[in-house]
């Protein structure tokens, strides 16, 4: 309605054709684009339907209930070749999440260390960190994955000549074997103790902050929390009578038996993603710390804070505000890069989907599932990060 009114008023003014009314033009352009897109979609859908009919592929998600018939080399849940395609995709999805989460944790630790190292007073540390960042930022992630997989892990000795590492773990071309913990009777209590410790530390932290706000007295929160989180499970461990034994891998004539094993595909992908993303996280962290005004540090010294306190209470909270948005996009990049797993055969969502795509020809459905899953992960991660960001953001009056 409003646009019509303006359009009419435009027409009334002498000597100006309605062709020159920006509103009318805007509507016209939008209509053209809209019709063009609709026509394109109509054309694509028509072609696709015709193509699918010609090659006798039934569209729809019915194929998910079919028998997969292929094996998956590593799975976090029960899976056999008799399971359904849907189950196989679920296994792939869990594998994606698994490598992404572990990779994110490692890359964050490594990235923060290197980022801080780049700002170190120490010349040698600074240069080493610089070389690390410049090397890994400028080579493709796929190359790093290949390097770990083909260059390092697959040229390791065979199982009977496994390299012995400390804590009776072994490394060979079939992966990394290490003692598997076997929890005995009543071990659940230790977990409960850990949760109780976490909850108690949280409560103590809240109480301490309230008290500090009210009275100014400082309570040693970190030490108390460490004692609670470590001490309570340890106490439970002692009380329940040490219910933990280890299943050690044993070196046989041809093979290793027992213990837990990490497959080289997982190891290569995990190491490559962590090393690669750490370089980017390091740059993010460095930029964040440099982004905090020097006056902030100086002012906190003037208030009498010690350097450690100034860093912890003044610099880091402000740096985090700068770091968090790019950091979340690095996490997403790592998750998306985990799809490179298909190149070395780690069964992630894309690799499993690719197998299914080849077997059934349901390309639209499989690509659709990929897109929905990755978009979902992206949206959830950015939602969480936005929430955290809003919590950390500068509160202005």
């Amino acid at each position, binding site marked *: 309605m409003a646009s019509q009114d303006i359009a009419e008023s435009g027409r009334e003014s002498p000597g100006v054709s309605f062709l020159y009314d920006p509103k009318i033009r*805007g509507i016209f*352009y*939008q209509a053209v*684009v*809209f019709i063009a*897109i609709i026509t394109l979609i109509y054309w*694509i859908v028509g*072609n*696709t339907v*015709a*193509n*699918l009919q*010609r090659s006798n592929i039934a569209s729809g998600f019915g194929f998910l209930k079919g028998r997969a018939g292929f094996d998956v080399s590593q799975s976090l849940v029960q899976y056999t070749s008799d399971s359904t395609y849907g189950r196989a995709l679920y296994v792939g999805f869990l594998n994606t999440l698994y490598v992404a989460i572990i990779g994110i944790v490692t890359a964050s630790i490594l990235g923060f260390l290197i980022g801080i190292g780049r700002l*170190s*007073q*120490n*010349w*040698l*540390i600074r240069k*080493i960190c610089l070389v690390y960042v*410049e*090397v890994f*930022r*400028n*080579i*493709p*992630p*796929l*190359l790093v994955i*290949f*390097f770990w997989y*083909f*260059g*390092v892990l*697959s*040229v390791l000795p065979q199982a009977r000549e496994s390299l012995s590492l400390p804590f009776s773990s072994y490394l060979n071309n079939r992966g990394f074997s290490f003692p598997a913990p076997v929890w005995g009777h009543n071990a659940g209590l230790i977990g409960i103790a850990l949760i109780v410790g976490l909850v108690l530390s949280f409560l103590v932290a809240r109480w301490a902050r309230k008290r500090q706000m009210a009275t100014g007295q400082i309570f040693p929160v970190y030490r108390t929390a460490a004692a609670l989180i470590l001490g309570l499970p340890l106490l439970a461990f002692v009380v329940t009578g040490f219910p933990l034994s280890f299943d050690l891998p044993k070196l046989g004539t041809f093979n290793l038996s027992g213990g837990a094993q990490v497959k080289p595909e997982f190891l290569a992908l995990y190491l490559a993603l962590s090393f690669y993303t750490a370089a980017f996280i390091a740059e993010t962290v460095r930029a964040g710390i440099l982004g905090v005004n020097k006056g902030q540090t100086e002012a906190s010294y003037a208030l009498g804070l010690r350097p450690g306190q100034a860093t912890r209470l003044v610099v880091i909270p402000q740096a985090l505000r700068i770091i968090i948005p790019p950091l979340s996009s690095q996490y997403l990049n790592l998750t*998306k*890069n985990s*799809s*490179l797993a*298909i*190149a070395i055969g780690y069964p992630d969502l*894309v690799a499993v989907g*690719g197998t299914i*795509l080849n077997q059934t020809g349901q*390309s*639209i459905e499989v*690509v659709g599932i*990929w*897109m929905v899953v*990755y*978009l979902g992960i*992206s*949206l959830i991660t950015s939602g969480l990060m936005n929430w955290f960001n809003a919590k950390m953001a500068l509160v202005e009056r």
Partner: protein
Amino acid sequence: MANPDLSLNLSFVRTEMAGATPPPRGERGLANWLRTNLFATPVDAALSIFAILLLVWFLPPIINWLFINAVWTGPDRSVCSTTVQGGIQPEGWSGACWAFVNAKFQQFLYGRYPFEERWRVDLVAALFVLLLIPLLIPKVPRKGLNAIVFFFIFPIVAFFLLVGGWFGLRYVETPLWGGLLVTLVLSFVGIAVSLPLGIVLALGRRSQLPVIKLLSVIFIEMVRGVPLVTVLFMASVMLPLFLPPGVTFDKLLRALIGVALFASAYMAEVVRGGLQAIPKGQYEGADSLGLNYWQKTSLIVLPQALKLVIPGIVNTFIGLFKDTSLVYIIGMFDLLGIVRQNFADANWSSPQTPATGLIFAGFVFWIFCFSMSRYSIFMERRLDTSHKK
């Protein structure tokens, strides 16, 4: 009242500045540098010693492997394997197999491009370098003409030269292409398409027109939310489905479309950052001068916005260049793919071959990406007209 005789009474008046004295002995020289840079505090000293130990532990074996123990020439895998593995090296030997890179070097550059036609690739490469270098050096005049030739005429010439089939040149189908040739073709086209497309998408996202804005947002967020692998799969598996039956598409072209669309979504976000950083007064000033939308955008807004985001644009280029390696997954052989394919070659397979080939490929990628990032820093400093410091 100044006494004119006073100056005569003074025994000495210095007329020039005294020369600066050198810093005290403790504040200069190697010892001081070491103290301030490596051993300033006990923690620092411990870190330095740790780092030195790390370097002593790692560097000599790496240098040994890369250069001293390395094999530089040889006919086949025997020079790079130990006697047990069927070669001539003593037991326990380990070193880079540069002989492999040496033997396969031509393949790494051209893929399976026919031997007698390789001069065409060389010619295109020479033209590329000849046109690119004056474009990159700020002092060389006629930038506009150079850019037009580089971005519009050169691709056409390169297309006819590389594909052939015209003017008596033999037709070379794209499955024969490979190696660095494919990497560079993919990145050049990706860059040349993604920058303008990205700018259009960014303008679309900032547009007042709801339909255009919505379409841009959907495209950008969809593409940015999924991995490139899925986009490439889409381009290689689903694109043929979208076309009328019987119409086939070149595989390289499909990969090109996937890579270019993917990069343009990222480019759009970078450019949008620049557009948002331009103060509102610039837009209003342009409006008050009576400029229309396209004049305002191309003469006032974009020159400032693009200058602001040069680092971001170059980062996207670097990302695109690295991402071209992913076409290996849909069965094409770019530089990384061809290296990967060649170390499965029975003639050369040895435990040292994969690492050597990958280090070579990594080095080539690194050179390209690193020089791009250095050039972007150089341009950023040159174009910096701000007065902050």
